[in-house]
């Protein structure tokens, strides 16, 4: 029962996330690139998307931080890693380059796929291959 409920809540969470991206303009790569292009005129809208999301998220994590289990009785899985290591910084720097090239980050890639856009599908498949390449390299290093 718990498992069924957690699947339903995850679908709703994903759905609301997708609606949020569409409403915010984050599902429109041209809008994302207009945010990342600060010259000569800058559309700062997407800073407000993050601001709005963080304002709500901040409260949610304050509540979550006081609990050991979720409201469905599942264990709280909150990252505990604190080290700022090479992989974190290098990976983020690399990710930003790809984000700047097409204006698409991982969550909007799935929304664009859902619109049936061929370009969205091509991006999503490439992104999943990129993730697969990472997994391959990582598994060889173990």
């Amino acid at each position: 029962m718990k498992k069924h409920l957690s699947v339903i809540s995850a679908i709703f969470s994903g759905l609301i996330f997708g609606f949020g991206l569409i409403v915010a303009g984050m599902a429109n790569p041209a809008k994302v690139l207009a945010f990342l292009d600060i010259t000569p005129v800058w559309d700062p809208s997407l800073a407000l998307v993050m601001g709005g999301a963080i304002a709500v998220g901040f409260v949610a994590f304050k509540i979550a931080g006081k609990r050991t289990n979720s409201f469905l009785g599942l264990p709280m899985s909150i990252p505990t890693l604190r080290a700022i290591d090479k992989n974190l910084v290098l990976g983020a720097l690399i990710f930003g380059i790809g984000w700047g090239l097409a204006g698409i980050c991982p969550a909007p890639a799935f929304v664009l796929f859902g619109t049936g856009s061929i370009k969205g599908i091509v991006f999503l498949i490439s992104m999943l291959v990129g993730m697969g390449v990472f997994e391959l390299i990582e598994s060889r290093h173990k």
Partner: protein
Amino acid sequence: MTIDWNHFTPWSALAGGGLIGISVALLILLNGRIAGITGIIGGLFKPAKSDAAWRIAFTFGLIIAPIIWLLFGKLPEITIDANYGLLVVAGLIVGFGARLGSGCTSGHGVCGISRLSPRSIIATLAFMGTGFLTVFIARHLLG
């Protein structure tokens, strides 16, 4: 640099951000999980894990969002200017970089900053930095 007031959409940006925040809140408070897409998908590459169901469910929700939206009205404008070659390159870089850095805009940028995680703040500054720089180089130095 001046603000592009003709294209600035503060209210829809805040509303959309608020929805994303609600989604993040639902997933952490009900499932005890972080709504970071890179981490959610990354977990699916590891077949030993038995927690695939919620990951697939969340991703399914993201994919059907535009489909359900279309039942009620038209989708707002979506323009992908990049050509296919660029999309492949960008996709490979995004996928690899986000996994190497343990997160993307959702995991680090929204969830991590909401938790005031130093790792996520550094990561967000890093990918925002190269994001701005890449667009500047592509549009103003090469374009």
